[in-house]
């Protein structure tokens, strides 16, 4: 146990919380105060107690723990803390691949052209393939995304509301009787309320989906903003990233920037089955996917084992209320779901939808609402 200098530990402790804040932990003033209070009550000379005093006051999520461990080790030095048992994950950062750079040569010819948009062009743009737009069209389409009006699907809740018909509501009936001095009053009825059903968006951001990733994340932003408490969004690639928090910001550009920072595996490989399993283990089975409408945006290219993908889709199907698969290529003429991945997933999907244009995304919103 390293003996720490306890003559005046305060500046050091506050510095530690600043370092944690920079590492992305939620160390607001309230938490720092709680931390200092906690440190006062433990033996500061004991590294284990110092470690735990900080961990219980400054962390708020299992994702915070590796970062806390790292910061603690580097700040207080030498103290080998494996008490958490969580592997320290090396943070990888990446930005959203600038899709509009035309790096892959598509749309190069149109790049410099000004686009004057008339009403009829808007109609045309709605049906254009999102993967084949020029810069100007893309910018204009972003504006059009604002016109989308997602409506949450509803489910029955276990709470009741008063109604004219339904089951008898003894509590309200008795209350009315008491008000009437015990005389039999009019019977009161109640019915179950409805609540928004949770929607989970899983967006494939692997290399083969690169032309669509930006638009689909923007679409996800619109849906998340429409009901922040009831929509969750994740990206799938070589790993799973939860982007709901990033996408809850109002400003689309900021939200996209935050999402880009969170997602480390843009345009990488696809291990759809495996990331899906991580999603189900960490989030889905615990309750996030239960009775939810789950929308998977992917072209179904799977480099891993397609049997695993099929197995995980079956698992997802058993948990969720309904599973929609959106494939940007499904809207093309002559499309056949023959890619090994989608062929394995298709038996466990309620609907396979196109999602390559604004018009098809609008159709998707209607499907989600009625799911």
């Amino acid at each position, binding site marked *: 146990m390293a003996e720490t200098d306890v003559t005046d530990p305060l500046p050091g402790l506050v510095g530690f919380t600043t370092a944690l804040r920079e590492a992305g932990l939620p160390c607001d003033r309230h938490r720092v105060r709680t931390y200092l209070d906690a440190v006062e009550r433990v033996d500061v000379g004991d590294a284990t107690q110092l470690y735990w005093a900080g961990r219980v006051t400054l962390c708020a999520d299992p994702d915070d723990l590796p970062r806390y461990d790292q910061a603690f080790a580097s700040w207080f030095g030498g103290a080998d803390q494996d008490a958490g048992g969580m592997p320290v994950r090396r943070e990888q950062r990446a930005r959203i691949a600038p899709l509009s750079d035309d790096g892959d040569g598509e749309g190069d010819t149109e790049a410099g052209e000004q686009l004057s948009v008339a009403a009829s062009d808007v109609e045309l743009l709605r049906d254009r393939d999102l993967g084949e737009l020029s810069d100007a069209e893309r910018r204009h389409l972003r504006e059009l995304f604002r016109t989308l009006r997602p409506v949450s699907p509803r489910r029955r809740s276990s709470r009741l509301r008063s109604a004219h018909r339904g089951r008898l509501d003894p509590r309200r009936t*008795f209350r009315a009787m008491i008000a009437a001095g015990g005389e039999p009053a009019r019977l009161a009825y109640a019915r179950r309320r409805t609540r928004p059903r949770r929607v989970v968006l899983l967006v494939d951001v692997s290399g083969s989906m690169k032309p669509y990733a930006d638009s689909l994340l923007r679409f996800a932003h619109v849906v998340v903003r429409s009901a922040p408490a009831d929509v969750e969004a994740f990206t799938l690639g070589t790993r799973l990233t939860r982007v709901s928090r990033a996408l809850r910001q109002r400003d689309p550009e900021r939200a996209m920037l935050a999402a880009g920072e969170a997602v480390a595996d843009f345009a990488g490989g696809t291990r759809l089955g495996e990331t899906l399993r991580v999603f189900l283990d960490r989030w889905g089975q*615990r309750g996030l996917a239960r009775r939810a409408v789950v929308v998977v945006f992917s072209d179904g290219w799977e480099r891993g084992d397609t049997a695993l993908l099929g197995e995980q889709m079956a698992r997802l199907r058993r948990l969720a209320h309904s599973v929609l698969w959106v494939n940007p290529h499904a809207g093309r003429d002559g499309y056949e779901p023959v890619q090994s991945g989608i062929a394995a997933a298709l038996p466990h999907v309620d609907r396979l939808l196109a999602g390559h244009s604004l018009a098809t995304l609008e159709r998707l919103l209607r499907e989600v609402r009625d799911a």
Partner: protein
Amino acid sequence: MTSEPAAGGTAAGTARTASSAGPDPSSVSSPAKLSALLADIGYLADDGVATAAFLSLRMGKPLFCEGEPGTGKTSLAVALSESLELPLVRLQCHEGIDAAQALYEWDFPRQLLHLRALEAAEGGRLNVDDAEQSLYTERFLLARPLLTALRSSPCVLLVDEIDRADDEFEAFLLQLLDENTVTIPEYGEVRAAQPPLVVLTSNRTREVHDALKRRCLYHWLEHPDLSREIAILRARVPGIGRRLAEQIAETLQRLRTMELLKPPGVAEALDWANALRALGRDELDAESAATTLGAVLKFSEDLDRVRARLDAVLG
């Protein structure tokens, strides 16, 4: 009106009266002392749990426990109440839980009967004010766990699976935890003489609002390591031998590294040990493991996967 001790009230949850002989919570002077107290009643806490619970006790802040199912979140609250000899009040959250189910409710049917009885007794010359006053008294108040906790404090209040409740309930709970007071319009104010020791648990089916987390100490529980799990088995399962405890713990550690839908927790280890003891086994072999595997694994996919490699899993 201040709180009275929970006499005669219909205490929901499992409240038992505190004996005054118990260790005074304020006398617990270090995490190690608390750890020893917990060990006395068979809950073997690691440094993290001991420090978190100690701080929660000393700082008067609720302890928010998250972790895989079966890592001992709920049993921590039970163990704290036993070792500190405080009553345990348990509130199990579920979807749609509201103030009436969590805090208090008036017993309307009984109030109605009472009113009728009064009317009959007084022969129609009912004094309206008196009658009304007699309706809103202790005997018609149904105390639910939160009110019970406020009235019987010091106690341990376990709010189990808070992630199952709706956000509206979370906000309501937040206010209650902040003020340790509740006002019942027809009755008066109930204030906890001393804030209860609150333990909240969550399985992360939903992210709990940050405002609630900020008021709590946050603790993430892990599965115990090998030596601790052996110790837990030996402390909790009567008549278990060292050999069987070691075998079960080692197998459990191996099972947790396999990619299972539901990795088994300590609760499953205890179930398994009890199942084997009930069959009179002192040792884990392939045959007894195969017949009792259902105590450990709860998904048919997991069972298939493990059965196929049973010898390797048993080591």
